């Protein structure tokens, strides 16, 4: 139970944020970090727990964002009704990718996912009758208010409301991943991560579990995209591109692969760091590059991994 304490503490702090943080810039960074954390957590499901390096998650993120935004702005749907189709579209593409990459591993797998992601984002960009292409979708409205049947409404116009929505989503996703990893399905994932050949010899249905991992992970990434769209109010094919996919990988690796806190820590670190570096003006990105290299060299297991090692060493003293 002790290991739940940091989570509870973190949760309480997170809940208090809108009341404590008055600076809207800092608040914005926290909101966007929460949204990216959902993306990172989704990727962690395939990367950290199933051992599959996907570089396509930017595309799933974008698919979710576009599905929801298009349904709301062009077909006048209610925001809440767009969530299932957004997740379904992302999941479908995730399953397709899982199928296409079944026999691949290692770098072949990674680059194949990269290519898939690029194709998806290119189609989103070029098919502008459907998606408005490089114009992007602007003025995305806030989610419609939640009707509390007799007790009024919860409006979602304010940043605080959007924050709580994202936070709730993150919490649900983390809970889902946690339960999943501890279930027989999760054990199958772990087996695949450790040694695919051996796992299949032991009777693990590789096809089923890989597809499942991808579909679930993609659906979650799509959900992150949906939240991103309503928060930023503008989406563009760049958001579905490979940079978001790369950043998601970085958040996890820097944070600590295969841990639950890793993606969140990594996201917070990599969202705030470039902003802190703004004081260095023109040298900002250069310094970021240096820091990435230093982190990888001295903390090869990421921040959370590194902290764990430190704690073990300290306990062993």
């Amino acid at each position, binding site marked *: 139970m002790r290991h739940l304490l940091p989570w509870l503490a973190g949760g309480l702090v997170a809940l208090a944020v809108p009341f404590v943080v008055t600076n809207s810039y800092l608040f914005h960074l926290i909101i966007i970090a929460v949204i990216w954390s959902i993306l990172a957590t989704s990727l962690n499901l395939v990367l950290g727990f199933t051992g599959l*390096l996907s570089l396509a998650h930017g595309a799933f993120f974008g698919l979710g964002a576009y599905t929801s935004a298009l349904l709301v702005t062009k077909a006048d749907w209610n925001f809440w009704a767009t969530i299932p189709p957004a997740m379904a579209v992302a999941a479908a593409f995730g399953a397709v990718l899982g199928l*296409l*990459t*079944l*026999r*691949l*591993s*290692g*770098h*072949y797998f990674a*680059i*194949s996912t*990269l*290519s*898939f992601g*690029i*194709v998806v984002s*290119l*189609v989103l960009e*070029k098919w502008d009758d459907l998606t408005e292409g490089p114009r992007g979708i602007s003025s995305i409205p806030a989610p419609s208010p939640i009707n509390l049947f007799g007790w009024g409404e919860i409006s979602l116009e304010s940043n605080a409301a959007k924050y709580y929505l994202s936070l709730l989503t993150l919490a649900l996703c983390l809970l889902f991943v946690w339960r999943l990893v501890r279930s027989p399905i999760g054990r199958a994932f772990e087996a695949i991560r450790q040694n695919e050949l051996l796992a299949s010899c032991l009777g693990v249905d590789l096809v089923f579990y890989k597809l499942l991992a991808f579909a679930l992970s993609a659906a979650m990434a799509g959900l992150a995209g949906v939240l991103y769209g309503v928060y930023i109010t503008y989406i563009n094919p760049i958001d579905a591109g*490979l940079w978001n996919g*790369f950043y998601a*990988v*970085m958040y996890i*690796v*820097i944070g600590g*692969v295969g841990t639950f806190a890793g993606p969140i820590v990594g996201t917070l670190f990599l969202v705030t760091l470039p902003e802190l570096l703004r004081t260095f003006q*023109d*040298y*900002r*990105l*250069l310094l*970021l*590059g*240096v*820091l*990435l*290299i230093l982190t*990888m*060299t001295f903390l*090869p297991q990421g921040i959370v991994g590194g902290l764990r090692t430190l704690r073990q060493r300290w306990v062993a003293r």
Partner: protein
Amino acid sequence: MSPFLVQQIANGIMVGSIYALIAMGVAMIYGVMNVPDFALGAKAMLGGYVAFLLTATFHQSYGVALLGSLVAIGILGVGVERWIFRPLAGAPPINGFISSFGLLLIFENFALLAFGPSYRRILSPFDRDIVHVLGASLTMQRLLVVVVAIAVMIGLHLFIRFTTLGTAIRAVAQNRRGALLCGIHTERIAGVTMAIGSALAGVAGALIGPIAMVYPSMGENLIVKAFVITILGGMGSIVGAIVGGYLLGLIEALGAMYISVDYKDAFAFAVLVLVLTVRPQGLFGKGAR
């Protein structure tokens, strides 16, 4: 044969040559060091700037500029291997990937700071004359790109096959521990490989400079395609990288012509995904993975 078909094929071969050079660099470095060097595109960019400096500021000839970029970026590669990748030897390859991404940020922003964001033109004596081959128009520079790329490929092939150093490189690529047991200084080989791979990228940048101009972010598109090519050809296979490079160039050119020029960039990636479903190790990769 329609002159425009010839033109597209010629385009494809030229573009393919540049891709192939960088892909060869990726393949070599991956084969020996098991590290996906994502900064190789940025090294090509730096090679372009070196060539620009040599021709514009130091008024050297274009030939000197080509040689200069080769040497300068080769040396840079040695430094990168020594201080960036060697410390990461024991870690999973993904760490090396992220470090190389960090390196990309450093190179790009260094170039931005040093040279500013404007596009620079490298003046080459070959960029003025136009040659007509089977109805296609090619500047001499474009022809030069193909010629130099092929010369480099042949040179590299001979080097790998027939010199002691080349054999040592092959040994380390095949089995690092085995090579170590045979007395091969694997770290030095890593340095040499990185030097060669980087030099290839550097000269690619200097070659494409007169055609496409030099600017800080020019390496980004190149490196993504280079990675796709190395996988398509089979990771670690230099022949695969070459074939893959030309294949990609041609697929893009012909796809642009016959299917849709808007989706030009997508064809290469789509082809890769499809090829890998049928042949998971790439075209020339070793064994099923």
